């Protein structure tokens, strides 16, 4: 269960943000400027963090898709890819 939700101020009133936080009525909500202030900071311990993961709602500003290197293309003229690594809960 999610106990803490960090929300970027810029998207605090975004309909999708409101929709997501409605699903966690008991979670404490903490406003942040950018998700980088919270996520993967120095001195954090990954294994302890995994004991009680928090949800971060953030806006992805650019590089929504990235150009695919030539050797990995599917043969079309323009090829792009995206990574799920950081984008599981991006609004």
């Amino acid at each position, binding site marked *: 269960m999610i106990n803490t939700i960090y929300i970027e101020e810029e998207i605090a009133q975004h309909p999708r943000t409101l929709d997501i936080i409605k699903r966690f009525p008991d979670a404490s909500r903490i406003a942040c400027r950018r998700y980088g202030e919270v996520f993967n900071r120095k001195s954090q311990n990954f*294994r*302890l963090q995994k004991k009680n993961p928090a949800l971060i709602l953030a806006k992805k500003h650019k590089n929504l898709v990235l150009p695919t290197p030539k050797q990995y293309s599917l043969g079309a003229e323009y090829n792009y890819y995206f990574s799920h690594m950081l984008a599981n809960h991006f609004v």
Partner: protein
Amino acid sequence: MIHLFCALSCEAEPIIQHFNLFKIKEFDLFRLYQSGDKNITLTITGVGKINAAAAVTFHHACLSTSPSDIWLNVGIAGHSSIPIGEVCLINKITDYQYGTTWYPQILFEIDCTSAALITHDAPSSQYQNSLFDMEASGFYQMALRLGTAELIHCLKIVSDNQQHSVENIKADHVKKLITKNKLKIVQLLNSLKPLAKELSRINTIPECYQTLIDEYHLTQSERIQLLRLLNQWSVRFPNDDIMCLVSNIKNGKSLQKKIKTKLIESDFSIYD
């Protein structure tokens, strides 16, 4: 170990009494206290974030600290509407002067309010919707360099608000507020102890490592690889003794090969 920090004597006294701490006489730049078993220490930092940061550094220099230690700043704070005497665990610290923000990681459940706090350079009676104090940013910033984020926290007890201004705060009143809430402090420390224990376990070199490097001839690089394999082993097979697996191994290379093979051949899932 548990490291406690209070700005004022009146904040520290009830804690010193509760944990039966005694003063360490050889250090006099800041007042340092310690329990008989040396597991709990307390430093009186003085008022202000610079004093708080300096006290954390001094505390670290005088007493040996480790990344699996618990660091806790206990003190009083003001708020516009939270009633006096309410205990708040801080989930966001903002330095008013520089605008820098930190987010203490609360990985446990605790029976008290969780709130944001702003650290000011001087007492203020312009109450806001955030708590405010004068030490937390200095304490947290410095403790973060020495400890682990999940084990560093600030616990504040509301001492003044719009109805009862900061000018009316007396030492006796502060002492009463801390005394009344000392069980909350103990409760918080008890919630942090399992995390500290877990971290200490993660950072500990497995017992069999020394036995194995004494028994087998290994280069420095092979020792590093062996330590990595032993750590993997302790995660994958916490109840199995590795010494049983490697009892008949003749040399260092075969030792690593045997452990690697066992790790690779065993089924593994990241889900419970």
